[in-house]
């Protein structure tokens, strides 16, 4: 983990000096995480890919402004957060991001037309996540799926740590209720 951090910092230094290959290597390490974060926020593969490309372009253009390379992850996700919310604002000029409900992701495989057990849970989780507010959903994604610390999430979403915790804990209570019937059927 420490070795990885040092290597990232080294790549960032090289990229700052204009080494595009070093930056491409850095992208290859982070593109999957950024893409999945954006995919779970915007719930559209094409948008998530476009936004991911924008995120890495903006990150490259602003790499000199990154004070501490050790904080690259939260800095990168802050850019991703801003890009996603910028897209929300473009599509809903009134700024009612809370009410935006992402499209359902297609692609859950079935057996003989019936959903099989792990898929049932996956779909239930997807559905439960969609019932959260945009802020709650993003906090769950950053904490549970991306493993950020509360302080890092606060930095990414520009909110106090107490607000971040409140969003996460409320979301987990809601998710617990939503997923209870599926869990009761023994899906997990």
């Amino acid at each position, binding site marked *: 983990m420490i070795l990885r951090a040092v290597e990232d910092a080294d790549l960032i230094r090289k990229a700052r000096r204009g080494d595009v290959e070093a930056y491409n290597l850095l992208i290859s390490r982070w593109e999957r995480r950024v893409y999945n974060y954006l995919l779970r926020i915007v719930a559209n593969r094409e948008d998530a890919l476009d936004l991911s490309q924008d995120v890495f372009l903006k990150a490259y253009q602003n790499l000199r402004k990154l004070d501490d390379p050790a904080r690259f992850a939260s800095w990168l996700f802050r850019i991703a957060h801003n890009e996603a919310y910028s897209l929300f604002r473009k599509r809903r000029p009134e700024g009612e991001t809370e009410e935006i409900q992402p499209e359902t992701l297609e692609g859950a495989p079935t057996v003989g037309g019936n959903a099989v057990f792990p898929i049932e849970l996956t779909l239930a989780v997807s559905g439960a996540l969609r019932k959260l507010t945009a802020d709650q959903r993003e906090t769950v994604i950053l904490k549970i799926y991306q493993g950020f610390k509360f302080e890092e999430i606060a930095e990414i979403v520009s909110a106090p740590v107490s607000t971040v915790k409140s969003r996460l804990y409320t979301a987990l209570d809601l*998710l617990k209720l939503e*997923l209870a019937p599926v869990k009761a059927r023994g*899906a*997990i």
Partner: protein
Amino acid sequence: MSCSPFDLRDYYFKDLAENERRLTEVHVKTCAQCREELDRLRGTEAALLTLPDEEIPQRIGFVSDPVFQASAFRRGWDALWGSAARLGFASAAMLSVALITFALIRPASQSGAPAPAIDRAALEADFSRRLNDAVQRAVAQSEARQSSRTQELLATAEKRQELDIQAMRIRFNEYVEVEKKRQNLLLQASNPSEGGDAR
């Protein structure tokens, strides 16, 4: 409602201070209700983690393109500006050294027979004039060198740009020729079949 001394969710997400974590740990060992609450949290997290990550459909990468590099003018200007700043610093350093040296080697005033004030003033003025002349000469020489270097850089960049444009023009003409030939071939190939359909 949890009876834990500290928030169980903070404990679960490892966001408690060491002493708080220990106290909560001791409490959880003896409290079935809090253990159940922790199990529910674990279950919810496990359920969430069944949602798999997806592979990115298209890898992201950038190419180094001269278009994004600074223009020749910009590079020349940067070089000149950087050099001028360095030059200014060097001049200031030289002047400081000269002043310190002058202060150190200046003859001490003799007691009883002070040197005439007019002689010392003349000496200082003469030294200052010679020092200024030397600095001005150094600055002029350095600026001349810098200006010539900038012109060389600009000329090289312009030449390279012309060559690039020529190469692009040749490639474009070749491409147009190939396309024309291809179109002709396609037309020739498509004409007989159209005639057959018409019959």
